[in-house]
């Protein structure tokens, strides 16, 4: 009698597990061919998009993309856009681990290349350059890249594993400066936060971050000859649950509307 009970319990469990597995969000598809919604296209000509679009984007894109997402939702009422922002390298790991995302936008091309086998063709939509961020009032009196060699200053950099960090490393190498940071933060947002809070005298972040932080932060420019330019690519993921909507959002990013928003945030769109 106990054996039967155990078997019944097991059977119930298997059924429950199967039901849960089947409960993933149903992709909202349309019958329209993907090519119908091209960049800058007339919204009324495109077929209705529905469902959820999951966009993984570099931390430096958080404000711009959030704005574009709201616009996209207004133009496509049936669609919800969900964002996951973080260090590009972390996002690439998530994609490799099978995260159910539709679109990936990273802060440099090498990170995108790490998951080239899992995405469609990437397209560069913007570039970003580095800038030194200091707290309002510049308490540390930081004037340039050379100050990063000063051990008496409290300095923050992005961790070398993330795009912002590797770009900064390149820049310091080009400038011949050996930086003496006190902390390597896990992504550019965390690095910027330390500046905003006044915990560090300076940090190397993107120009867009300095703009996004507003009055809390001041920017000190990096000489052009050593500045590192990051190309930001975007790609639809091969296993995207909602490829049509993903492509539509990508097209928005690449469109004139997207370019305006990016430039307003401080990105450079060629």
């Amino acid at each position: 009698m106990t054996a039967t009970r155990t078997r019944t319990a097991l059977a119930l469990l298997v059924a429950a597990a199967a039901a849960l597995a089947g409960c993933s969000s149903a992709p909202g598809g349309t019958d329209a061919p993907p090519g119908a919604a091209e960049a800058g296209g007339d919204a009324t000509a495109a077929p209705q998009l529905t469902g959820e679009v999951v966009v993984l984007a570099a931390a430096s894109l958080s404000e711009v993309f959030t704005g574009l997402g709201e616009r996209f939702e207004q133009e496509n009422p049936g669609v919800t856009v969900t964002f996951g922002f973080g260090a590009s390298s972390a996002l690439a790991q998530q994609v490799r681990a099978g995260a159910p995302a539709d679109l990936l936008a990273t802060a440099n091309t090498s990170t995108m290349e790490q998951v080239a086998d899992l995405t469609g063709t990437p397209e560069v939509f913007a570039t970003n350059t580095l800038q030194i961020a200091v707290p309002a009032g510049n308490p540390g009196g930081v004037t340039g890249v050379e100050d990063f060699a000063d051990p008496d200053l409290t300095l923050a950099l992005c961790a070398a594993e993330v795009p912002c960090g590797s770009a900064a490393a390149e820049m310091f190498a080009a400038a011949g400066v050996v930086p003496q940071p006190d902390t390597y933060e896990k992504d550019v947002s965390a690095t910027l936060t330390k500046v905003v809070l006044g915990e560090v005298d300076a940090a190397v972040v993107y120009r867009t971050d300095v703009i996004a932080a507003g009055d809390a932060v001041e920017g000190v420019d990096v000489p052009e000859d050593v500045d590192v330019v990051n190309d930001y690519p975007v790609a639809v993921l091969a296993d995207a649950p909602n490829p049509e909507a993903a492509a539509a959002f990508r097209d928005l990013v690449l469109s004139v509307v997207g370019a305006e928003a990016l430039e307003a945030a401080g990105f450079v769109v060629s």
Partner: protein
Amino acid sequence: MRTRPRAPAGLLVPAALAVALLVLPFVALVVRAPWGRLTTTIASEPVVEALGLSLRCATAATAICLVLGVPLAWVLARSGGWAARVVRALVTVPLVLPPVVGGVALLMLLGRVGLLGGPLERWTGVTLPFTTPAVVIAETFVALPFLVIAVEGTLRGLDGRTEAAAATFGASPWYVLRRVTLPRALPGIVSGAVLAFARALGEFGATITFAGNFPGATRTMPLAIYLTMESDPEAAIALSLVLVAVSLVILLALRGRWLTGVRA
């Protein structure tokens, strides 16, 4: 003749699932470990540095927890009023708080422009964030409640008559505490210390927010694993195995009556 009634079979299934949930991830870790590179990865300088830092900081944090936590536990165990209840609830807050919140709070208090950190920097020039002491502070913050709760539970379970009897023989309250109460409470104290050490060793959110991340100074094992995961997942697995092994060694070394008997 069976002395205990058998557990109903229905209980065994969830119990087995619980075991699976807890054990299988480690099995997967072991299976996917890069056994070929394991020794070189573990012996590499950054890893040795991170591990050494983790162990030193966790030990320091546990020591502070003992020095501060045992007296607090004693006071709470002996007090009955509403004030004691309020204090006990406050002490438990870090237990339910996400560690990152703890880190933010510590930053607000002890950061360079923090409530206490600001004056500290102005008067002594000392700043705490991004230093090894900051790691110890963050770990103490999250581990202290574990120790206080474990020790208070033990002390409450001791009936005070032995202490009262000892006192009639001329022993001062300190003498009674030293020779009678604390030794009787020792199993609970050790248990609490082990819990605190384990919690401190694994602390991530508060550390990375308050102490930052710098190799040798503040890059503890959990931080190293998190960041390595993004660039070299296999190395991250190796590091994870190291941390699991260290934890197992600690738990095994203090097995049996130290851990099962929180009550004296």
